[in-house]
């Protein structure tokens, strides 16, 4: 497995070997699925759209619908205006969504199709909407694409609302699973706070089996709610990379102050999330949440000796990683290598600050790839690897226990339904981590050391 990856570090200057990121449109497509009755539309050649749908389908194991402008060579030379207009006509006539969310691909970005001006002359049926985002794949990553489409929602849907703000909060959950969005919504409901979440993919990519297929299931943020987000008291952007742009734009457009927080993974980030809400709405935290927190701390204390001091390598998307690094530190673990494929100097700075404060030595890298991560591990082994499905090759090559987290997880099921955010999510993470480590301990134990009770 990965036998050609040498131990000695090689100075590489160009390209990626085994990327830890992918391109913008898939993030944009996922975000667009978080609007009720929305059909994402990929403006470019159909191959991209096909790849993005397949990949999302593999992660969620649910139908992922999206249309494409289906470019051929001609459109690439003469521009894609005609293709986009035909698409809009056909999409509304045949599939009848309430809204279409157009994103570009590297092709249409390269030829310079001007989406707003094409849209201004397109025939959009009464009562229907078309929103858009520019998502060139040669900039950023799928996280940038997610952020751009979320920003596109604000850009195209939100109007500068009333000066008078309502007692409600906007929550931008970032690139997380529907299971996480559900959990965030549950916490908000426990708090009794009125909120608007977008994008919200719950009920869309985890829709129930009913024996009837619905192209547009019940879930997703309602357009009128997104429009109303301009009147909210403030916005919580969860995850700097995936959510802050949209929150900032909402502030510029409608004077809704943004608060950028970490994705609420682990105890500290969840505390911060709840404290922000409590302080702004001047409200008590209900006992139910306090009880959960107490249970989590109980579990952390009960189990700390299983992982304290263990070295972990983790890779994935920046927002998830910053939160997860913090949680690992709270468990007494050592995040020895933290690598994201997405570019971002800020990411490196933030993680380094965290590690330093904890007195932990670790390597941190933005815009890295799995080849590099693997080389680090070869030079300094770790006890645990955390990352998406692609990590399984490194885990096997180096025989490291492996916990699947992030996007995409294509070789396991159920993960997208269950949260990793909030106190309950943290419990689940501990279960996964200690399970992986203890399974390994059992596997490696000599017969005489194989124990029944801990």
């Amino acid at each position, binding site marked *: 497995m990965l036998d050609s990856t040498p131990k000695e570090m090689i100075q590489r200057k160009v390209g990626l070997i085994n990327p830890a990121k992918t391109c913008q449109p898939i993030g944009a497509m996922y975000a667009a699925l978080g609007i009720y009755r929305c059909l994402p539309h990929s403006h470019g050649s159909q*191959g991209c759209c*096909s790849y993005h749908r397949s990949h999302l389908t593999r992660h969620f194991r649910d139908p992922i619908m999206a249309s494409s402008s289906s470019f051929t060579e001609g459109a690439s030379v003469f521009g894609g205006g005609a293709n986009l207009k035909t*698409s809009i006509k056909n*999409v509304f006539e045949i599939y009848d969504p309430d809204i279409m969310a157009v994103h570009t691909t590297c092709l249409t970005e390269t030829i310079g199709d001007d989406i707003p001006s094409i849209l201004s002359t397109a025939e959009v049926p009464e009562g229907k909407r078309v929103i858009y985002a520019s998502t060139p794949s040669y900039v950023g990553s799928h996280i940038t694409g997610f952020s751009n489409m979320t920003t596109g929602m604000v850009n195209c849907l939100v109007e500068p609302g009333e000066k008078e703000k309502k007692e409600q909060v906007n929550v931008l959950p970032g690139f997380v699973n529907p299971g996480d969005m559900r959990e965030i919504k549950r916490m908000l409901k426990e708090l009794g706070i009125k909120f608007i979440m977008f994008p919200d993919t719950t009920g869309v990519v985890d829709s129930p089996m009913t024996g009837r297929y619905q192209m547009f299931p019940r879930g997703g943020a309602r357009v009128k709610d997104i429009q109303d987000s301009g009147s909210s008291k403030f916005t919580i952007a969860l995850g700097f990379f995936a959510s802050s742009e949209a929150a900032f734009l909402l502030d510029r457009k409608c004077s809704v102050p943004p608060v950028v927080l970490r994705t609420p993974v682990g105890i500290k980030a969840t505390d911060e999330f709840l404290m922000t809400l409590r302080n702004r709405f001047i409200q008590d935290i209900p006992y139910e949440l306090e009880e959960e927190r107490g249970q989590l701390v109980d579990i952390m204390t009960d189990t700390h000796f299983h992982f304290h001091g263990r070295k972990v390598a983790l890779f994935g998307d920046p927002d998830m990683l910053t939160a997860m690094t913090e949680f690992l530190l709270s468990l007494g673990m050592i995040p020895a290598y933290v690598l994201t494929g997405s570019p971002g100097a800020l990411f490196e700075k933030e993680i380094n600050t965290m590690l330093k404060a904890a007195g932990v030595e670790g390597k941190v890298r933005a815009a890295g790839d799995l080849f590099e991560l693997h080389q680090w591990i070869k030079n300094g082994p770790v006890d645990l690897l955390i990352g998406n499905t692609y990590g399984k090759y490194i885990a096997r090559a180096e025989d490291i226990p492996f916990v699947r987290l992030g996007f995409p997880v294509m070789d396991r099921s159920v993960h997208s339904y269950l949260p990793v955010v909030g106190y309950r999510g943290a419990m689940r993470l501990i279960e996964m981590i200690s399970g992986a480590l203890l399974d390994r301990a059992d596997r490696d134990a000599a017969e005489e050391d194989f124990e029944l009770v801990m």
Partner: protein
Amino acid sequence: MGLHEKDLNAIFERYPAKVRRNRKKHILVVKDTSQERQQIEANTRTIPGIITTRGCAFAGCKGVVLGPLKDMVHIVHGPVGCGYYAWLTRRNKARAEDPKKNFLHYCVTTDMQESDIVFGGEKKLSGMIDEVVEIFKPNAITVSATCPVGLIGDDINAIAREAQEKHKIPILAFSCEGYKGVSQSAGHHIANNGLMEGIVGQGEMTEPPHRFSINLLGEYNIGGDSWEIDRILQGIGYYLVAPMTGDGSFETLKNAHVAELNLVQCHRSINYIAEMLETKYGTPWLKVNFIGIQNTIDSLRDMALYFGDRELTQRTEEFIARELAMIEPVMEQYKKICQGKTAFCFVGGSRGHHYQGLFGEMGMDTVLAGYEFAHRDDYEGREIIPDIKLDADSRNIPDLKVTPDKELFRLKITPEKKKELQDKIPLSNYQGMIQEMKDGSLVVDDLNHFETEEFIRLLKPDLFASGVKDKYVAQKMGIPSKQLHSYDYSGPYEGFRGAVKFAEDVAMGFVSPTWNFILPPWKKDPL
């Protein structure tokens, strides 16, 4: 079964006029196939806005044909996405004697950035080639271009040539930008041309290493398919020179010219090479199908006929008898479950046809079949190739003209012998899918999402066999669904053992108790 014209028209009515005119040509109800040939439109542009399952030329070139070659490093020149999605997603397996010469688990991309789009990505590509050579020391390298590369005009051919000079290993460039052609099909063609020009015939061999030397073309070893075929062929006494391309390698492909016969499994993806091998080296090709028991048997018998060797024929029959004795009783139990059920069969280039025999053996009727990116000949047979009008999109894919190789051309069988054989076996011929379909069944080219939903409602198939993008659509309707591209992480499905595995998986889909829970009890028993 059988579909009423009026139901079909009701579906068409829901389309805008232009779309209706277009789609009508891509759908036909099979009528008396012995009487006349029915015409279907294929390999034309997808209508913008239509939710298709088709991919792009890059997917066909790097994803399908080049990707499985294990001892080459495949560099994708473009932004990160294309390379990333083509990384291990086809389930094409490979074993390498030297683990340092199996690069399938690596995904190499130039990850073009904005500045590369503005100033060109040529430097980056040649830098990447240098690094790849240094790190992996591969036997050869491929470079595949994605959409923006063609647009900004990076000369990947020139870069590959220079790098080849410098590193003294073959470096092949493929201009398979995603917008070329109308589907993956364009990419298959581009890949075929490149392999033919850059690899085949470069090996040292001039004579076949064995009397019954063959190549296996258009077999991608999904879920280990070609290992099952290998087992069968070896068991009978054939020698596989070059598998193409599943579990294939640069090293074996070089000598593909010496084989006595080329077997073609997936016609669509590789018929170009098959043709070129015949012209250039004098090796005929035989259309085989190793999916389904009878198909496998027929293919083996056709091969034996081709070689016309008594012992080989006898070994073939013995092998078949042995295998049948082993699998028939097992198949019987699955047949009981599957008997009388119907299937949809919509897949890429060949499986839409190939699986129908196996379904039949399981007692199932195929009520609708189609291809994602076929050409008319895949439906109607090769004889119509001269009638196919080339449109602008196909003309853009260069046809590689080959001539008999001065040194290596060797007529493997005489023209007389060939003629004689052609009456008995599909030598240099493929009859197409429609021929074998039952009257009243439906053939749909480039089936789209809307039609999928409508046809499922109309025909109520018991099984939906397709790819990952539409799999869960059918399943949400309560219809068991089988991925025929990637097999739902199962397989192999080819050959004798594969047929059993397939029947087992499909039967499992039917009998799974999970379907019984769809309706909650309070819906069944209202207050």
